[in-house]
Each structure stands twice: as structure tokens, then as C-alpha cells.
């Protein structure tokens, strides 16, 4: 017979969503246990590296001053890659330099342990190196979990176990998962000096750059590349759709894609002389609203990636802000339910309402069409190639007399942008 113990709330997973929830509940005096399978919070977590803070401030009013944020982003670059050419647009804006800053780069290996410490200070018990193996049921209600051969009973279980949530599946809250609901990312953290980083990206002290790449780097697959500057490291990675990946020849490795990305002339000089200090790979949910599971059940709530609260536009991956906010809203729901001492679906459905009222579901709603639109391969091979080739022709001065600019453009445009392009364009409009 396993030993049993009771707490008020069990949270499965010490990622951002789980920790945010624990932080608020513990601060309100609830008894919270967070169980994490990694060696420490953050040890298994991967992110590209940019956290949008603005939407979050009201959820955690005092938290950000001492947070281990890396650089605030003041420079945005977007690079469309053709096979032998590329086009980069750069946006620098004075507005990005104003406090409070709009977005920051972060490293999870630092950020998550820090947030865990805050939650622990408030009284949450965080237990790493333990995996939750099952849910406990009684008369159709979730009444706790099983982890490391122990049974822990709780009023509410919060599933914060990330993309591919095992808890959602166990609770029967999810829809059937389809490969197109997921992408996979591989990332390296490359060590450089802060001086070199600021010089290479033309940044002032403490400022950061974010660069996104699409086109030939993903070899026609849905996805893209990202580069974020941290204090003295660079986060560099690629994200591709699982569907597209599955169509590749067997044995294709994501890491190879990252390796050739690092060799691209657009990237190589930026990381020259740096040493990789960390490699990681992770799943990104990106089904959007269409593939979200039900986010509450009897005695259970689902937060963060586990609830499919992430967005991948191919260029921008966003999920950390959703994870943090959903954790906070789940905490609010639990506190209200606690007052009523009612953890039925009717009582916990308040969480879904709160999500709908917040930027989380509003944000996802705006991008409702994105996932299907993104399944379109033209975006990742034809258009970037055409764009960079056209510009290349424009700029090239050869021996022959140069044709009129409009002629060049028209020809290029006709090659690339046939009828389907009009359709693609219309869809962009709807987004």
C-alpha cells in the first residue's frame, strides 16, 4: 500500500505555467506542492528566449524588478533566406528603448530556478527529480496524483506538464493529437563576450537584438530560425513542423538543420569564435485555438503549453507569456473555488472565462487562422527565394545593359506569385 498524504493543490510540472500558479496560490496561503521530473526547475525547459512583458505586468506587479532578464530587445531583424542570397529588414525604434521595456531575452536555466525560489519563499513546496505517473480518481473526480510510488491527494490538480501533456490525456480532456498540432525546435546557447555581442549587433550596453529567419534554412519545411542575444551568450535555433519533418527521409536529424543554419553566411560571422555551452530540443504546440483541449475538469485545471496556449506563426513563437498568465488565472480560479469549497467543473469553468477575458485567448483568437495558413509550403520556399532573388537581380550590375526595374520586378513577381499567391494573400488579410 502506498503512503498517502493530502495537500490543497498539486501542480504537475515546474515550468513557467506551474510556477506562476504556485507563486500566487502560496502567496494566498494555500498549501501547494509542485512536482517536477527534471533535476531542478528549468533543467528540462526550452524556449527561444524572448519574453513579452507588457501583457504580464498586471499579473505580477512586483516580480520583474529583480528577475534574471538578459537584455531588453531594441532591435528587430527579419531575414528572408534564398539559397544563395537573403534579404534582411531591420527595425530599430526609440520606443523599444523606453522603460518599461517591451520585451526581454531570457534563459530558462536561470529564469525558472529564480521563479521557483520566489514561489518557495511564498511557501510552495517544490519537489524536483520526481515524475507524476498517474491521476487518482474517485467517482469521476480527480482527487490527486501518483508520483514516485506515493499517492498525494488534493482538492485540485493543475496540469502544467507542457506540450504533449500526459495529464491532459489521462484526464481525458484532450482531442486526438495530430502531427500538425506540433512543431519541434532545436537550440544552442553559444557563449561570447558581452562586448562582442554589442559590437556585432550594434547595441548599446544592456540592449538586445532579436532576429528571425525564414526560407531556405528549413529546406522547404514549415518553420524558421531564431537568434536572441543574451548578456554573454546567443540563443540560436530552428523550429520546424512535425508534419513537414515526417515527410523528410528517415534518419533526417533536426540537429543537422541547425548545423547548416550555423554555417550560413548570414549567421556565421555573428557567432564566430563562440562556444556552444548548451544544446536542447523541445516540442512546441501550435495547433492554436482549434486544437486546444478542454482546460478544466472535475478537480483539474490545465495551464500553459499543456493547454495548447502557444502560438507559432512560423516566425514568432510565443508561449511563455501565455504560460505565466494562465498559471496566474488558474490560481485565481482555485482561490475562488476554495472559498466556495466547490471544485466541480461548473465551479472551475471560471478559469475558461478568465482566459477569454484576458490577452491570452484574445491573442490566440486573433491568430485563429494562422495554423492552417502556415501549412502552406510556399511560404517557406517559394516566396523568400523569390524575394531575395528579385532584389539580387535588381542590385546586380552585369555586362549587359540593365533592364528597367519594373520589368525585372514584374517578371519575378509573375514567376513566384501566381494565382495561389492571391489566395495566400487573402488569408494573410484575415489574420
Amino acid at each position, binding site marked *: 500500500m502506498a503512503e498517502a498524504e493530502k495537500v490543497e493543490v498539486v501542480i504537475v510540472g515546474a515550468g513557467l505555467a506551474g510556477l506562476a500558479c504556485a507563486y500566487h496560490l502560496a502567496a494566498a496561503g494555500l498549501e501547494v506542492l509542485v512536482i517536477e521530473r527534471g533535476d531542478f526547475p528549468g533543467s528540462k525547459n526550452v524556449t527561444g528566449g524572448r519574453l513579452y512583458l507588457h501583457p504580464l505586468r498586471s499579473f505580477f506587479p512586483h516580480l520583474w524588478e529583480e528577475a534574471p532578464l538578459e537584455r531588453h530587445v531594441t532591435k528587430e531583424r527579419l531575414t528572408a533566406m534564398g539559397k544563395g542570397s537573403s534579404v534582411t529588414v531591420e527595425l530599430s525604434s526609440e520606443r523599444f528603448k523606453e522603460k518599461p521595456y517591451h520585451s526581454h531575452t531570457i534563459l530558462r536555466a536561470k529564469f525558472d*530556478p529564480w521563479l521557483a525560489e520566489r514561489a*518557495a519563499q511564498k511557501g510552495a513546496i517544490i519537489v524536483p527529480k520526481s515524475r507524476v505517473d498517474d491521476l487518482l480518481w474517485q467517482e469521476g473526480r480527480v482527487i490527486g496524483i501518483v508520483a514516485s510510488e506515493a499517492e498525494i491527494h488534493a482538492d485540485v490538480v493543475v496540469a502544467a506538464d507542457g506540450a504533449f501533456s500526459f495529464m491532459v490525456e489521462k484526464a481525458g480532456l484532450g482531442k486526438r493529437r495530430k502531427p500538425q498540432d506540433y512543431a519541434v525546435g532545436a537550440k544552442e546557447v553559444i557563449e561570447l563576450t558581452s562586448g562582442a555581442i554589442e559590437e556585432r549587433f550594434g547595441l548599446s550596453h544592456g540592449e538586445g537584438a532579436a532576429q528571425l529567419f525564414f526560407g531556405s534554412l528549413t529546406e522547404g519545411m514549415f518553420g524558421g530560425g531564431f537568434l536572441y542575444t543574451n548578456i554573454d551568450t546567443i540563443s540560436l535555433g530552428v523550429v520546424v513542423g512535425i508534419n513537414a519533418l515526417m515527410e523528410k527521409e528517415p534518419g533526417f536529424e533536426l540537429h543537422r538543420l541547425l548545423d547548416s543554419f550555423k554555417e550560413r553566411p548570414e549567421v556565421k560571422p555573428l557567432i564566430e569564435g563562440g562556444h556552444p555551452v548548451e544544446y536542447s530540443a523541445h516540442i512546441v504546440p501550435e495547433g492554436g485555438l482549434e486544437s486546444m483541449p478542454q482546460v478544466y475538469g472535475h478537480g483539474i485545471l490545465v495551464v500553459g503549453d499543456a493547454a495548447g496556449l502557444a502560438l507559432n506563426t512560423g516566425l514568432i513563437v510565443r508561449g511563455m507569456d501565455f504560460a505565466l498568465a494562465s498559471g496566474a488565472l488558474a490560481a485565481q480560479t482555485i482561490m475562488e473555488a476554495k472559498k466556495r469549497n466547490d471544485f466541480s467543473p461548473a465551479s472551475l469553468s471560471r478559469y475558461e472565462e478568465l482566459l477569454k477575458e484576458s490577452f491570452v485567448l484574445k491573442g490566440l483568437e486573433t491568430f485563429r487562422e494562422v495554423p492552417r495558413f502556415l501549412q502552406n509550403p510556399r511560404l517557406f520556399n517559394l516566396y523568400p527565394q523569390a524575394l531575395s532573388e528579385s532584389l539580387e537581380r535588381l542590385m546586380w550590375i552585369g555586362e549587359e545593359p540593365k533592364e528597367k526595374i519594373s520589368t525585372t520586378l514584374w517578371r519575378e513577381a509573375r514567376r513566384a506569385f501566381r494565382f495561389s499567391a492571391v489566395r495566400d494573400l487573402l488569408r494573410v488579410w484575415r489574420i
Partner: protein
Amino acid sequence: MQIVVCLKQIPDLQQIRIKRDTREPVLEGLPFLLGDMDKNALEEAVRIVEQRGGKVTALALGSPKLRDTIKEALAMGADEALLLIDPAFADSDTMTTAKILAKAIEKREYDLILCGEGSTDNYSGQVPSRLAEILGLPQVTYVRQLEFTEGGLRATRDMEEALEIVEVSLPALVSVTSEISEPRLPSLIQILKAAKKPLQEWTSEDLALSAHEVGKEASSLEVISNLAPEQERKNITLEGEVDEVVEQLTDAFTREGVIAR
């Protein structure tokens, strides 16, 4: 039996990253663990109390992160924790560490004090001896086995050339080697229960120590530099079937002239 176990929190040394250009260690953000041999000492203390009754107090001096780190000691079976946390204590050397720990121990009743033979990071072995000196206690070091006798303890010391069996009466201070015990892995339930165990915190004020008696100011040591030793290695991975790699390796031996043949 009232046992005080001194435990030090250590950044996880397996995870230290060394900066390539400056050879500086990056300690920021590393998780903290309890010292290896300190856990051996704690395990021994818990076993003694399980058999003979009494109480185990986990005593630690360190940064505020201790509040979290010490939970492992409580989960392993310590009955209570006593933490010495104060910004003024930062950068205390072995001399001041022993002074502060002694002040705390003096305010307690105890029969036995257990320490590790050396801390996992510093391994100076000074703290236990200095502590015994301040408290005027007999000390037995390098203990790999401990038994109780009528009048006190019988301990097996692990010295370079011999095992030495000694007897001492209580109260005494004992420092242990890793052979003495196998620290238990606490279960989830024990971890949960640990959260409810008593945890007390003292600052310099509680110990009647003034700020210039402790910490960096009172330190007898100054660290001029602390860098990873220079290592230029070839880092060549030999690949292929076993026969091939063996061939490549013997070729390398010849080329490097490292074996006489």
C-alpha cells in the same frame, strides 16, 4: 541523544561552466545541494536517533537559499533545522564560519556534533577542528564507523596507513568520511512532511556578534584569483569499428611517443 549535524550548502559542482576566454567559473544560477559528506554525517545521526532516541538538529550557515536547500536534510530525517542567515555573514572564511557555528551551538544542548570530513567545494577540513577547539571538545576525525559504549563512543578512524579504533566520552565532535553511511533518498511523502518540521533562523544579532566580527571584514584569508587550470587538450574522438579505433590509438601512442617501444 541530542545530535547537531553541521551541513554546508554547495553549488552543484557538476554543473559549473568555465568561461573559455577568462577561465572564470560561472556560479550564477547554479542549484544548491547539501555537501556530500555532510549528508553522510546526517544519515549517521538519523540512524543513531532511530535506534537510541533523541533529536537531530541540522545546523547550517549560508545564503538565504539555505531555506530551500535545508529541506533535503529535514526530509532525510533531521527533526529540526537551525539556519544562520545574515548578509553580514557573506564571504566568511573557515575561521569565522567556525566562530559563528560555535556561537549557535553554545546556545543549545548537545551530546554529539557531527560534521563532514571536508566540504564538497572547499574540502579544507578546518571548520570541524576549529569548532572543537572553540568549544573545548575532544574531536575524532576521519570516522568511518561509529558505535556506542557505556561511557561514550567507539570510532573507527580511517588513517593513511591504518584503521585506528579509538574511544572518547561525550560530548564530542566527530567528523566522518563517505564510507560511514549511504545517505537515504527521501520519499515524496517525507519531503512533504519535512515542510512542516520546525525551522529556526538566527542572524548575527541573535548570536550577539557584531558585523565586523563576521563575514568578509573578519576573514583571515583573501582570495586573489580563482580560475580553472589551463588545459589544452586535443579532443580527438576516434571512430569506427573496434579494430580500427584500437589501431588509431596505438598509432597515436607511437606518434606522441608516450610508450616506449
